[in-house]
């Protein structure tokens, strides 16, 4: 077990720069999740850590040792691949023992560790099968098993759950978390699923176009997104955005939303600034509140325990910035997420409200949180 230190790593393929000055300190035993949209460089960073790709510049230290120029096999890390990459010609037992055998561990010891790991993962009855005779979930466990028998300094996992069906994914997610608690091995986990990131991570690293957007624990990520991208990426459905201009009000600054003056907990010095105001769907509630507005829903989706109310945004509040959470929402609609709603909620005109303290403010030009 060891901490991992990534210092100023960049990676270019010819003209294309896919990682820009990536620096990150990971503590011993920490579970860090890299998350971001497709193509943002998550896998590339993981492969550089594994030694499968060479960084264009920068340094990698694992457990205080500079491994930047070491071969993958000399870094003492284990990797779990998205497609599992089990050796099809070897039995489960040999698959799991392969790494130990390559390191010259004696066969009795290999056998002991493989058996133990297989028990932990519940695949001990499959040890003599070939990978092709396993289900997707079983293959996934064997791939995890191959990583844990090595007892490496760190685990690198590249979207290990994305080939499983939804139910198995939730189940295995919990199992990987439990496994991490039990073994305490430093883990870097790549996903583009923000729910996986939120539920598993000690810390989340959100990336976009090869640049780290924010490094924080899941709570902070949700409560204090560093910029518009993070705000839109974390949370489901994603945060609602409004365009507004800050105006001086009585005692505090204010913005106009839904034709009303909404006071802000922000310094009056902001006056005149163009901002994007963010409000999470779950912070809009039914009934009266500090800021109340009446709407006629465009659409209502019911999930049983909650309802998504789609509401038109007044033209002056519509934002041009693309929504970043992956769901391409229309700029002229916001969503209110009502938890345990009344059955009739949404069938006609509706009163909604929110607390201005819940509002997030972002600079309209730089997209950075204010």
């Amino acid at each position, binding site marked *: 077990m060891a901490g991992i230190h990534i210092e100023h790593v960049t990676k270019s393929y010819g003209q294309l720069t896919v990682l820009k000055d990536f620096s990150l300190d990971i503590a011993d035993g920490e579970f860090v999740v890299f998350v971001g949209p497709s193509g943002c460089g998550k896998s590339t960073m993981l492969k550089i850590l594994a030694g499968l790709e060479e960084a264009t510049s920068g340094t990698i230290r694992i457990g205080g040792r500079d491994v930047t120029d070491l071969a993958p096999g000399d870094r003492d890390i284990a990797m779990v691949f998205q497609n599992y990459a089990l050796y099809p010609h070897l039995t489960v037992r040999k698959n799991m023992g392969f790494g130990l055998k390559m390191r010259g561990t004696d066969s009795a010891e290999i056998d002991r560790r493989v058996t133990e790991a297989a028990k932990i993962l519940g695949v001990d009855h499959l040890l003599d099968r070939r990978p092709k005779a396993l289900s997707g979930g079983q293959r996934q466990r064997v791939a995890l098993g*191959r990583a844990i028998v090595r007892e490496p300094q760190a685990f690198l996992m590249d979207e290990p759950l994305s080939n499983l069906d939804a139910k198995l994914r939730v189940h295995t997610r919990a199992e990987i978390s439990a496994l991490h608690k039990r073994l305490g091995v430093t883990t870097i986990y790549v996903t583009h699923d923000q729910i996986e990131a939120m539920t598993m991570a000690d810390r989340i690293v959100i990336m976009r176009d090869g640049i780290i957007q924010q490094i924080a624990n899941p709570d902070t990520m949700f409560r204090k997104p560093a910029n518009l991208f993070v705000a839109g990426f974390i949370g489901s459905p994603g945060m609602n955005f409004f365009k507004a201009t800050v105006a001086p009000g009585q005692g505090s600054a204010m913005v106009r939303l839904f034709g009303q003056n909404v006071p802000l907990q922000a310094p009056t010095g902001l006056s005149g600034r163009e901002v994007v105001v963010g409000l999470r769907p779950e912070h809009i509630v039914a009934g009266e509140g500090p800021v109340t507005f009446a709407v006629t829903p465009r659409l209502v989706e019911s999930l049983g325990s909650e309802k998504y109310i789609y509401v038109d945004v007044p033209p002056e509040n519509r934002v041009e910035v693309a929504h970043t959470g992956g769901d391409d929402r229309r700029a002229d609609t916001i969503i209110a997420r009502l938890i345990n709603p009344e059955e009739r909620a949404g069938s006609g005109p509706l009163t909604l409200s929110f607390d201005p303290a819940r509002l997030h403010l972002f600079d309209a030009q730089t997209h950075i949180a204010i």
Partner: protein
Amino acid sequence: MKRSLLHSTFLYVAVILVCALLVFPIYWLFITAISPPDQLRVLPPRFWPEIPRWNVFGDVMSDRPILLWLGNSALAALGSVLLSMTVSVLAGYSLSRFRVRGGQSLGLFILTAKMLPATLLVIPLFGIFRTLDLIGSLWSIVLAHATLIIPFTTWMLKGYFDTIPRELEQAAMVDGCSPLGAMVRVILPVSAPGLAATALYGFVLSWSDYAYARTFLTNAQTNWTANLGITTMKGEYISNWGDISAASILVALPVLLIYLFLERYLVGGLTAGAEK
């Protein structure tokens, strides 16, 4: 029900026709071998001789050094396959895995070499082998056959390696293999069907060669390959077609046996690229 009966009848008739077309020459070769010489040119042709000459195979083997010729053919084929596979496994793997400057055009160049007719290369090769003092030696056809086999097998193996996910050797490297170790311990075993199919292709190509053997080996009787040997049985005035046919069957037999033996792997090998 009626339609499906019609359908399957049609299918069977078609299959039988195709088989008959393919098998008839072999059958005729066999009949020619076991018929007495005077019955070979009768009209209407006879489809089974009255008194089959079963001993023709034994006779032809004692008359001619067929076993020696077969041995030479086998040596040449094994040698050229071994050489070709060594080269083309490494070349095909590199073409499949490494982005080399000009790799694409190199691949095309190899493909072009494959399109040249073998006879075009006979004369330059003769010149080279004479300089190297290899004329009459089995090495000449080992090398000559390799020049035919390597372009094709390299291309075939590159295609096969392309279907194997890169993560496999990446996993092996994380597990502690060197790049070459990953190839030997993981990629080659996984490619076994492809390797078998490719090697067999090379073997048959070498085994069935006549032009090169005729050019390089004619003056070295002890090094004659089976195909070369058989053609010497054809006389200027008299040809004993029965004996020639019997010898031909003996030459075809080994390849047939190998095919039967490897069939299971071959089918796997030939379809492996079809589904990822």
